C-alpha cells in the first residue's frame, strides 16, 4: 500500500517539475466595494487550467509564461487579459458589477462542487420571505434536501438529520443559536452577508463536529474607498449598515437590527385587562467586522456579533394573591468574537489562522418582590466554545493541492443551572468541560477531463473528565467529467458530533438545550454516501442535478418519553434517551434556468428518515418527527422593467408525521378524595409513534422589488412588497385532540364529565402581506459622481497593489 502511495507522490512531483509553470495566486474582488468574491471562476486559457475562489476569495492557479486570464462571476462583467509572467506572482483581479438584479438564481459555475448549494447576497435579496426582508435560512429551505423544522422556523432539517446537526459558521466561527422571533427570522443579518455555502454531504475534512450539514456564511468586508451604508425598515424590524475605510488600509462594517414592536406590545398589554399584566418581546443583533490589509499578502480581520431575544412580563397581581408584584424575564441568544489572519506566504502557500469565542445562553429570572418572602428564581442553560484553527493550503503542482490543519476547541457546557433563593433547590453543578482537538488533511488532485479526486482525513480527539474518544473520519469525494457538460460524483464521509441538541417543537421561546457527550451519552456518528450527476444544457442556460444519498446515524440522543426540558432534575442525564439510531435516504433533483428573460429553478426531493431508540415506541423503528417524503419548490424570477423585479416561489411538502389516537378506554383516577368515590375517566390509546401524517403543506409566496431614487438626495432605494401564503392555505403546524376548538383544555382526569373529542389543527401563518423599504447612502450614483481616489488610496495602490488588474 505504501509502495503505491510513493509511486503516486513521485508521479505528482514529476508532473510538477516537467513543465515550466508559474504559480499565480491572489484574490478576486468587487472593483467598487473591494468585497471578496467567493466562487468566482478563474481560468488560464493558454494552459487550460481553471479554479474557483474559495471562501476567502482566494485562488491559486498554475499558468504558463504567457497567460490569458479570464475571470467570471455571476452578476459581474467578465474579465479577460493577457499576461507575461516571469516568476510566481500574487495578483488581485477586480471585477465590475453588471446589472444589479439580473439573471439571479442559484448560481451555476461549472466548477461548483457536488452536495454544495451556494447563494450570494444578490440571489438572497430577491427571494420571497416572511417579512419582505431577505433571510438566509428561509432561502436555504428552497434548496432540495433542506427542509424547515416547522412552518416559519429557521431550524433546518438537512437530509433527515436533527436540527442540532448543522454546523453554522459565521466567517468560519461556529454559532449555535440561529433563531429570532421564535424561528420566524434567522440571526443572520442579510446586510452583513457576502456568500452562503451549504454542504449537505461530501464534507471537506477541514470541517467537522456536526453530522448533517455545514452552513458557511461569509460576511462582507467594509468598503475600502468611501463611507456608505443603508437603512431598512420592515414589519418586524429596522436595520442599518455602515461601512467604509479607516485610514489607509483598514475598513469596517457595522450592521444592526432591532424589532419595532416592543413598545407596541408593551403599550397594548398595558391598556388591556386593566394593565394587570404587561408583556414585552423584542430582539436585536449587531455585527461588526474590521479588516486590516497591510499588504496584498496579509489580511487580518476582527468579527463581533451579539444578538438576543427577550421576553418579559410584569404582573401587578395574580390570581392567588392580589397584592403581589411579579416579574419574569427570559433572554436568549449568542455572542461571538473572532479574529482571523489570512496570509499568502508565497504563490503556492496560503494559510489562515483563526481564534474565536462563542457563547449561547438561555436564561430566565422570576422575581416576586412583595411576597411574604421575596423570591428570586434563576435559570440558566449555556454553551461556551473557545476555538483555534490553523490551516495551510499548498498548491503543489498544477493538478495537485494539499490542505492540512488543526483545530482545537474548548467547550463549557452548562445544560441547566436552577437557583431558587431561600430554597433548598439548587441545580447548579452541571457544568461539563470538554476539549476537542482535530487534525485534518486533504489532497485534491485534478485529473484529465474535468475530473477531480478529493481524499481527506479528519482525526478528532474528544476529552472530558469522564471519557476520551478518538474518531477517525475519512472523507472521499470523486468527480468524474464525462465531457465538458456532464459530471458524475461519488462521495463518502464519516462525521462525529460530541454534543447533542435537545429540542422540542412548539415553543415560542428558546427551548434549545445543548448537552455534551458523556460516559452515559455517547458521541453521535454518521456515515453518508452519495452519488450524483450534473449536466449543463444550452450553453449553460440550464443545468440539472440528480443526487441520491444514504445516511446512517448512531448514538443519537433525545428527551426521554414524556419530557421536554431538563428543569427541576438533579441529574439531567436521567431525562435523556441516548443510543438512538437514525437512517435517512433520498433522491434530490434540481433543474435551473440560469439566464434569459426569466430565471428560476425546480427542485424535488424524495426522502425517508427514521429513528430507533430502545425505550421509545417499544424499541421499534419509527418515522422521524420531521420526515417529509415529498418536497418540491418552484422559483421564478422575472425582470419586468429595469427597476421592477418579480419573484414567485411555490413550496410543497408532505405533511409531518404525528402520533394518532387509535382508541379510548377507561382508567381509574388516582386523585379522587374530593369525589364521593373513585371514578374512571376516558384515556386515549396512541398508535405507533408518528404512524399518521398531517395534511400536505403548500403555499405560494410572491415578492416585488421596486428600485427608485429618493427625491431629496437621489439615493438608491428599494421597496419590497411581499405576500406570504398568497392563497391563504391553513397549513398544519401541529395536531391535538380536544373537546372543542378553543384553547380551553378539557381534563377528564380531574373528574370532569365526558365530552366528545375531535382532532384539531393549529395553523400559524395565513396570508401575510409585508412591505419593507431600504435606502442606500454613499452609493456612487453614476460614473460622473464616482469619487476619485484620495491621495492615500492612490499611495496604497502604488505601495501594495502594484499588481492590481482591473477590466
Amino acid at each position, binding site marked *: 500500500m505504501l509502495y503505491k502511495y510513493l509511486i503516486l507522490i513521485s508521479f505528482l512531483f514529476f508532473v510538477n517539475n516537467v513543465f515550466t509553470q508559474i504559480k499565480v495566486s491572489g484574490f478576486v474582488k468587487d472593483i467598487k466595494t473591494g468585497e471578496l468574491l467567493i466562487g468566482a471562476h478563474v481560468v488560464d486559457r493558454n494552459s487550460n487550467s481553471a479554479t474557483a475562489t474559495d471562501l476567502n476569495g482566494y485562488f491559486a492557479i498554475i499558468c504558463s509564461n504567457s497567460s490569458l486570464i479570464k475571470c467570471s462571476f455571476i452578476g459581474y462583467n467578465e474579465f479577460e487579459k493577457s499576461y507575461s509572467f516571469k516568476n510566481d506572482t500574487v495578483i488581485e483581479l477586480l471585477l465590475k458589477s453588471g446589472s444589479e438584479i439580473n439573471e439571479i438564481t442559484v448560481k451555476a459555475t461549472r466548477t461548483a462542487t457536488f452536495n454544495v448549494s451556494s447563494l450570494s447576497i444578490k440571489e438572497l435579496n430577491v427571494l420571497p420571505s416572511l417579512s419582505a426582508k431577505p433571510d438566509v435560512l428561509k432561502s436555504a429551505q428552497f434548496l432540495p434536501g433542506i427542509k424547515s423544522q416547522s412552518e416559519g422556523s429557521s431550524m433546518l432539517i438537512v437530509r433527515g438529520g436533527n436540527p442540532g446537526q448543522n454546523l453554522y459558521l459565521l466567517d468560519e466561527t461556529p454559532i449555535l443559536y440561529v433563531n429570532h422571533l421564535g424561528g420566524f427570522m434567522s440571526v443572520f443579518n442579510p446586510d452583513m452577508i457576502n456568500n452562503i455555502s451549504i454542504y449537505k454531504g461530501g464534507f471537506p475534512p477541514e470541517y467537522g463536529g456536526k453530522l448533517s450539514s455545514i452552513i458557511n456564511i461569509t460576511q462582507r468586508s467594509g468598503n475600502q474607498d468611501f463611507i456608505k451604508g443603508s437603512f431598512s425598515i420592515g414589519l418586524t424590524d429596522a436595520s442599518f449598515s455602515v461601512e467604509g475605510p479607516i485610514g489607509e488600509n483598514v475598513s469596517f462594517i457595522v450592521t444592526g437590527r432591532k424589532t419595532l414592536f416592543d413598545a407596541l406590545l408593551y403599550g397594548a398589554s398595558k391598556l388591556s385587562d386593566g394593565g394587570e399584566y404587561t408583556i414585552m418581546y423584542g430582539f436585536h443583533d449587531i455585527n461588526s467586522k474590521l479588516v486590516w490589509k497591510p499588504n496584498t499578502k496579509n489580511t487580518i480581520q476582527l468579527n463581533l456579533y451579539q444578538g438576543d431575544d427577550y421576553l418579559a412580563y410584569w404582573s401587578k397581581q395574580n390570581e392567588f394573591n392580589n397584592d403581589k408584584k411579579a416579574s419574569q424575564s427570559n433572554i436568549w441568544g449568542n455572542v461571538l468574537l473572532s479574529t482571523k489572519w489570512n496570509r499568502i506566504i508565497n504563490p503556492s502557500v496560503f494559510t489562515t489562522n483563526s481564534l474565536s469565542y462563542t457563547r449561547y445562553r438561555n436564561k430566565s429570572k422570576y422575581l416576586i418582590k412583595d411576597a*411574604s418572602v421575596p423570591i428570586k428564581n434563576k435559570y440558566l442553560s449555556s454553551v461556551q466554545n473557545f476555538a483555534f484553527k490553523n490551516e495551510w493550503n499548498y498548491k503543489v503542482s498544477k493538478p495537485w493541492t494539499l490542505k492540512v490543519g488543526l483545530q482545537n476547541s474548548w467547550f463549557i457546557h452548562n445544560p441547566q443551572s436552577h437557583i431558587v433563593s431561600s430554597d433548598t433547590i439548587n441545580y447548579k453543578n452541571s457544568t461539563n468541560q470538554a476539549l476537542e482537538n482535530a487534525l485534518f488533511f486533504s489532497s485534491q488532485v485534478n485529473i484529465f477531463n474535468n475530473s477531480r479526486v478529493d481524499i481527506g482525513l479528519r482525526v478528532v480527539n474528544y476529552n472530558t473528565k469522564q471519557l476520551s474518544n478518538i474518531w477517525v473520519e475519512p472523507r472521499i469525494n470523486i468527480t468524474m467529467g464525462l465531457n465538458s457538460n456532464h459530471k458524475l460524483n461519488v462521495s463518502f464521509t464519516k462525521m462525529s458530533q460530541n454534543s447533542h441538541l435537545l429540542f422540542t417543537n412548539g*415553543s415560542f*421561546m428558546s427551548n434549545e438545550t445543548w448537552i455534551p457527550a458523556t460516559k452515559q451519552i455517547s458521541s453521535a456518528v454518521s456515515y453518508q454516501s452519495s452519488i450524483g450527476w450534473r449536466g449543463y444544457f444550452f450553453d449553460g442556460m440550464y443545468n440539472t442535478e440528480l443526487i441520491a444519498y444514504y445516511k446512517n446515524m448512531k448514538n443519537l440522543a433525545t428527551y426521554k418519553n414524556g419530557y421536554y426540558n431538563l428543569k427541576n432534575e438533579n441529574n439531567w442525564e436521567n431525562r435523556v434517551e441516548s443510543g438512538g439510531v437514525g437512517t435517512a435516504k433520498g433522491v434530490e433533483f434540481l433543474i435551473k434556468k440560469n439566464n434569459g428573460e426569466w430565471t428560476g429553478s425546480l427542485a424535488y426531493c424524495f426522502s425517508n428518515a427514521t429513528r430507533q431508540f430502545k425505550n421509545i415506541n417499544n424499541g421499534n423503528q419509527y418515522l422521524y418527527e420531521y420526515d417529509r417524503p415529498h418536497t418540491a419548490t418552484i422559483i421564478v424570477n422575472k425582470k419586468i422593467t429595469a427597476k421592477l423585479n418579480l419573484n414567485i416561489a411555490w413550496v410543497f411538502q408532505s405533511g409531518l408525521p404525528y402520533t394518532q389516537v387509535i382508541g*379510548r378506554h377507561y382508567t381509574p383516577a388516582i386523585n379522587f378524595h374530593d369525589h364521593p368515590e373513585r371514578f374512571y375517566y376516558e384515556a386515549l*390509546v396512541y398508535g405507533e409513534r408518528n404512524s399518521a401524517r398531517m395534511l400536505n403543506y403548500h403555499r405560494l409566496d410572491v415578492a416585488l422589488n421596486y428600485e427608485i431614487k429618493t427625491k431629496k438626495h437621489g439615493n438608491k432605494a428599494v421597496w419590497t412588497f411581499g405576500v406570504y401564503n398568497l392563497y391563504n392555505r*391553513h397549513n398544519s403546524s401541529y395536531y391535538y385532540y380536544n373537546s372543542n376548538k378553543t384553547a380551553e383544555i378539557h381534563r377528564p382526569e380531574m373528574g370532569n364529565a365526558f365530552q366528545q373529542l375531535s382532532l*384539531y389543527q393549529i395553523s400559524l401563518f*395565513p396570508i401575510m402581506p*409585508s412591505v419593507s423599504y431600504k435606502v442606500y447612502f454613499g452609493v456612487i450614483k453614476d460614473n460622473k459622481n464616482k469619487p476619485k481616489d484620495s491621495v492615500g488610496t492612490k499611495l496604497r495602490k502604488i505601495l501594495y497593489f502594484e499588481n492590481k488588474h482591473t477590466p
Partner: protein
Amino acid sequence: MNFLRLQTVVLLIVLFSTSCRKPVNHDFPDFEKKLVVNSILVADSIIEVHVSLSDKMNYDSLAVLNNAEVSLYINDVFTEQLHYVDKGIYIASASVIKGNKYNCTVNYDELLEASAHCYIPIQTPITEAVLYENYWVNDEGELCPAVQFSINNNTSKSMYYNARIIAMNKHNSDSVNDWSFVEEFSIDVFSNEHESGLLINKNIEFNGNTQGTDCEFAYILELRTLNIDFYKYLKSVELYEIGRYPEFDSGIAAPYNLYSNVTGGYGIFTGYSSVYLNLFSSDKN
C-alpha cells in the same frame, strides 16, 4: 411616521389573523374492541373491579359492561364470581389481604377474554416523620410546609412507594371528630432501586394551607407500598398527562400510553397497602 402607522396596523391585522384552530376532517382508524379491566385493590378494603370495553375514537361515551363474567382467584385458587353493582363495577364478598396474590379473569360475549394478576405488598412502616410548617418558598413567594420521613430499606428486593400528604381541616372547633378532606399534595412516587443504605430518607415539599387560615389544619402522611405494576402505572400517568396537552409556551412532549398489565385487553389491575401518620409541626424557618 406614516410608515410606522402603517406598520402598526398591518402588524395588528397579522397578529389577530394568525394562530387559527380548526377541526381536521379525519377518519378515525379502525380499532379492535377489547375488554378493559381496572382495579386498584386496597388492603383491607372490598375488592372492586371495573369492566368496560375500549372503543375507537368516535363521538359516543365508552360502554361499561353489566353482564361480564368476572372470576376472582386468590393465590391461584378460584374464589368467587364477582357480582355486578352499578356503572361497570363488580364487587367480591372478600376483602383485600396483604401478601396475597389476586388473579382476575373477565369473559364477555364468549369472544372477549382478559386477565390480570397482582400481588398486594405488605405495608412498610414509617420509622420517623417530622412536619416543618415553614420550610420552603413556592413560586408565589409563600412559605410552605415540608415533611421529612424515614423508612427501613429492604435491600434484598425491589420496593415501590407512593407518599402522599392529605390535608384535613376542622370546620367546627367544638367538635373533636369533625375533620374533613381538603386536598392531596405532592404525590411522590419512588423506589428503593438506587438506595443502598438501611434507611430511606425522603423530603416532601408541598403547598400547604391553600384554603386560607380561617380553619384549623391537620396533615396526614400516607405511605403506600405498591407492587411494580402500580409503580409503572403512576409513572405512566405523569408522562401521559404531559404529552396529552400541547402547551405553546413550553413545547410539545411526545404522546405516551398508559401502562397496562392486562393480558388480552387494557386497564390496570393492581393494588397497595398503606400506613398513615398524623403529622405534628416542628417548626424550622
